[in-house]
C-alpha cells in the first residue's frame, strides 16, 4: 500500500514538473516575442490612429502633433459614452482650429458603432470615420469609408446646416441618404453625429478652455 502510494505520489510530482516546464517554456517564448514586437506594434497602432485622425481633419487645419494633443473627456449621454473617451486638439500656430471627439452610436443594428468625429471651431463637421462596428457585412457596413463614400456626406454639416428636423436619414424625411434595407445603421450614425455636435455646442467654452490650458494635457 505504502509503496503504491509512494509511486503514485512520485508520478504526480513528475507530471506536475513536466507541465510546469512546458508552461515555463511557453511563457518564456511569449515574453520574448512580446518584448521584440512591442515597439513595432505600438508604432503601427499610433500610425493607424494618426491616419484616422488625418482622415477626419483637413491637413490645412493643423500643424501640431495630434497624437500628443490627446485629452480625456468625461462620459456623456450626447456622446453615447459610458467611459471616459478621448479628444484631440488641432492647432494651427497657437490657435485652436478643431477638435476630434470619440462618440458611440449605441443603437446600431448589432451593437455599438464607434465613431471619430472632427468638429471645426465654428461647429462644422470636418469629417467622420467609423473606428469599430459589428454591422452586417455587405449590408450595413457601407458606413465604413473603405466600403463606400457614404460617410463623407457629414463633412460640412453643422447644427444649422441642415436644420434640426432635417438631421435624419432620407427615409425619415431628413437629408442623409441611406440604402434601402439598411436604414437602422445610418440612422444610428446620423443621430450620434448630431449628438456630438450638440455636445460640442454645449461644452464648447469648457472644452476649449481645457484644451488651451497647457500642462493639463493627459497622455494615455
Amino acid at each position, binding site marked *: 500500500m505504502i509503496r503504491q502510494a509512494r509511486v503514485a505520489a512520485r508520478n504526480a510530482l513528475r507530471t506536475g514538473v513536466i507541465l510546469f516546464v*512546458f508552461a515555463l517554456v511557453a511563457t518564456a*517564448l*511569449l515574453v520574448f*516575442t512580446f518584448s521584440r514586437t512591442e515597439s513595432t506594434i505600438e508604432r503601427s497602432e499610433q500610425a493607424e490612429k494618426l491616419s484616422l485622425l488625418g482622415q477626419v481633419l483637413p491637413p490645412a487645419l493643423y500643424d501640431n502633433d495630434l497624437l500628443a494633443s490627446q485629452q480625456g473627456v468625461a462620459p456623456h449621454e450626447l456622446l453615447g459614452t459610458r467611459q471616459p473617451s478621448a479628444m484631440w486638439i488641432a492647432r494651427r500656430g497657437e490657435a485652436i482650429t478643431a477638435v476630434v471627439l470619440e462618440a458611440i452610436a449605441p443603437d446600431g443594428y448589432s451593437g455599438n458603432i464607434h465613431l471619430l468625429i472632427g468638429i471645426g471651431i465654428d461647429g462644422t463637421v470636418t469629417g467622420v470615420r467609423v473606428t469599430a462596428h459589428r454591422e452586417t457585412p455587405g449590408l450595413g457596413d457601407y458606413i465604413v469609408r473603405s466600403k463606400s463614400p457614404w460617410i463623407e456626406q457629414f463633412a460640412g454639416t453643422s447644427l444649422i446646416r441642415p436644420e434640426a428636423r432635417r438631421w435624419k436619414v432620407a427615409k425619415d424625411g431628413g437629408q442623409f441618404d441611406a440604402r434601402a434595407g439598411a436604414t437602422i445603421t445610418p440612422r444610428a450614425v446620423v443621430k450620434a453625429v448630431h449628438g456630438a455636435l450638440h455636445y460640442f455646442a454645449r461644452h464648447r467654452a469648457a472644452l476649449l478652455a481645457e484644451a488651451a490650458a497647457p500642462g493639463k494635457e493627459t497622455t494615455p
Partner: protein
Amino acid sequence: MTLQEFNTLFQNGLSKQNAGLVQLLGLCPLLAISNTLVNALSLGLATMLVMASASGAVSSVRHFVPHEIRIPVFVLIIAALVTVIDLLMNAFVHPLYLVLGIFIPLITTNCIVLARADAFASKNRPLHSVVDAIAMGLGLTMVLVVLGGMRELAGQGTLLSGIDLVFGEEAKQFVLHVLPGYQGFLLAILPPGAFIALGLLIAAHNWQKARAERRPHAAAPMPA
C-alpha cells in the same frame, strides 16, 4: 517519407477525412468567417499556418509528454503559438492584422487544431505531422473558399470584395461584380446562410462519394 505516404496524407486531408465536410470539425470559424471569399481564404491560410506549426511542435516533444497531461500541454503549445503569430502579424503585417485580427485568437479554440495534434502529431514524426497539418488545413481552406464564394455571390453578387484590405487600394480593381445591380440576398450573408450552404456542400460531397463507390462496381475490369 515516401511519395505514397505523402499522397495518402493529402488524400485524407483534402477529401476522405476533410475537416469541414467529413469530420465536421472546426465549424465555429468556418461558419462565422465564410461570408466573403477573401475573409474565408485569409482565415483558412492563417489556420493552416497555426496547424502546421502546432503539429510540428507537438510532434517534436511527443516523447516528453506523459499521456495523462497531453491535452493541457497541447493546448498550452497551441495557445502560445497562436499568440506568437498574433503578435508577429500585428507587428509586421499590420493592415492584414486589422482585417483578421479578431479571428486569430479564435484559432486557439478551433478544435481541428487540437484534434490533429492529438490524433496525428502525438503519434507521428514531425515531418509527417507537418505534412498532415498542411493537408488538413488546405482541405479546410478549400471548403472555406467555396463556402465564402457561394455566400458572397448569393449574398451580394460579387467575388473577391474586400481584397483591397489585404493587398492595398490598387487591388480594388480585382473585385468581380458578377451580378451587376444585384439587390443582395441577406440570408446568405447571415449565419443561417452558412449552415445552408455547408449542408449543400456536404450533400454534394456525399453524392459524389456514393457515385465514385458505385462506379468501379459497374465498370469492373473484364477478366482477361
